[in-house]
């Protein structure tokens, strides 16, 4: 009835007896699912009081108030980790600097610190990536940047992320990939977030350890401070730490993938000066190059060059490309280097098309140009 008093006893007597009793009470309870990401903040006081009016012999009496019940909201410890890559991240074998992205969200109702643990020995894959370093997104630039103004290397426990209720942090796992792997080999990396309250209370950050708490386990005085400033509320292990612990960790995957570039060149549409299709001097030939990238990887910095033989003359203004990256132009000035690398270079008699990065499975890119027989 007066939770205040009992609660006070709990937090003062942080005894093993209290602990054990609470543990027993909770073992068979079906806890409400923590579907509500954030509920009433931990430490808030819920007050209730009633009022009554009444009359005696028809005469209204002074209304009376009840006592006020006061209940502090305990801290529910919940965390959700998700992999934020769209799918397996393509890598080479060997490779370095392969990055997986995760988001860690505090779905509890209090301010909580989480330890992050990466595990590369995950079953159901073909190889183990070698974790180089975890990074915390701290420079407000999307993606992982390493260096002076880059993101912060995660070094537990020094910078274990402290997250307010419903706050998220982006975490990057930078790995190297072993040599000798074959196409489509997959390697998984699992990131787990464990509340430091749970680690302190149970002595383990490993959900498979016998001491790892079940939902409903409570730690007296380990929650956020209460609103009245009289102490800290109880911390209660939430449903995300259920028997499967599926929510507190997430798996990202690397996949070994190379991109295969197929180039097909055809000569077509010969028009001779006499209206026929005879290969005589002055006849114009339209060349078509089809570029197809297959595989699960990306052809990086893909550039197509075609040397025009001495017997042919490139016809100015005829170069056309079905899909050109931004910054490239199908003009005849193959300059300046580094800005526009597409065009005809008279100096080297070369048609060059810079396609930048082309992902496997992208639509076939068609390049056409005309040349006349000298």
């Amino acid at each position, binding site marked *: *009835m*007066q*939770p*205040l*008093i*009992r*609660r*006070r*006893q*709990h937090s*003062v007597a942080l005894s093993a007896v209290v602990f054990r009793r609470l543990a027993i*009470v909770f073992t*068979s*309870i*079906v*806890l*409400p*699912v*923590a579907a*509500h990401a*954030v*509920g*009433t903040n931990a430490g*808030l006081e*819920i*007050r*209730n*009081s*009633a*009022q*009554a*009016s*009444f*009359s*005696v*012999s*028809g005469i*209204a*009496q*002074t209304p*009376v*108030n*009840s*006592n*006020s*019940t*006061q*209940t*502090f*909201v*305990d*801290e*529910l410890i919940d965390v959700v980790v998700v992999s934020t890559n769209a799918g397996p991240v393509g890598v080479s074998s060997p490779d370095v600097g392969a990055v997986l992205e995760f988001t860690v969200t505090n779905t509890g*109702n209090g301010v909580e610190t989480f330890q992050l643990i990466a595990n590369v020995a995950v079953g159901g894959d073909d190889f183990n990536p070698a974790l180089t370093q975890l990074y915390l997104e701290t420079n407000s630039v999307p993606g992982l940047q390493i260096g002076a103004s880059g993101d912060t290397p995660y070094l537990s426990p020094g910078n274990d992320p402290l997250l307010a209720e419903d706050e998220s942090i982006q975490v990057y796992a930078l790995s190297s990939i072993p040599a000798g792997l074959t196409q489509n080999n997959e390697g998984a990396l699992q990131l787990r977030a464990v509340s430091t309250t749970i680690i302190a209370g149970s002595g383990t950050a490993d959900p498979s350890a016998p001491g790892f708490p079940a939902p409903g386990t*409570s730690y007296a005085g380990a929650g956020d401070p209460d609103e*009245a400033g*009289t102490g800290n509320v*109880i911390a*209660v292990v*939430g449903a995300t730490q259920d028997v499967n612990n599926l929510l507190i960790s997430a798996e990202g995957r690397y996949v070994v993938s190379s991109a295969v570039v197929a180039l097909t060149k055809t000569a077509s549409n010969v028009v001779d000066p006499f209206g026929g299709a005879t290969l005589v001097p002055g006849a114009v030939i339209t060349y078509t190059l089809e570029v197809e990238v297959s595989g699960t990887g990306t052809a990086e910095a893909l550039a197509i060059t075609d040397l025009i033989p001495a017997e042919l003359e490139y016809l100015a203004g005829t170069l056309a490309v079905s899909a050109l990256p931004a910054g490239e132009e199908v003009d005849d000035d193959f300059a300046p280097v580094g800005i526009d690398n597409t065009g005809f270079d008279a100096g080297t008699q070369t048609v060059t098309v810079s396609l930048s990065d082309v992902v496997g499975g992208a639509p076939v890119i068609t390049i056409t140009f005309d040349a006349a027989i000298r």
Partner: protein
Amino acid sequence: MTLSIKDKLMRSLSRGAGAVRLFVLFSGLVLSAHATAEVTLENSVQKVETFVNESGETERRLLDADSVVPGDELRYTIQFTNNGSDVVDANSVVITNPIPENTEYLNDTAFGSGTVIVYSLDGEAFAAAEALTVMDQGVEVSASAKEYRAIRWVFQPELKPGESSHVSFNVRLK
């Protein structure tokens, strides 16, 4: 009753720990003791927990509200007692309880033997549940229990000296 609380306070004071909070509680009771009321109200809270028993059936039970977290269901019980020597009139005991902040009323949980129960969306106008409506995109619809801001019980019988009864309602902590 005041004496027994005083006793508790003294005992607690001798333990030292709970003094500050107990004092707050105590001063509240002093106020009601100064009033000339013959009816006293005693408000208490418990946690309603759903659990699976040994036979695998889902059961509900009441626990101390020592540890409450968002999503928990709480039951508030208000016991009212005629501590005076006069009979309190029939249909005159009207108990009003605002829904506590950060909680939402759970439909059909208000209870009170011998009472007529009405609800309010604003804490001022009370009506039967069926009569409470809100406008939803220009259409008048029944108000959801979550929107109730207060509950009122009208106790129909007389309350004779020494007699006591209680009303209760459940909320979910948001």
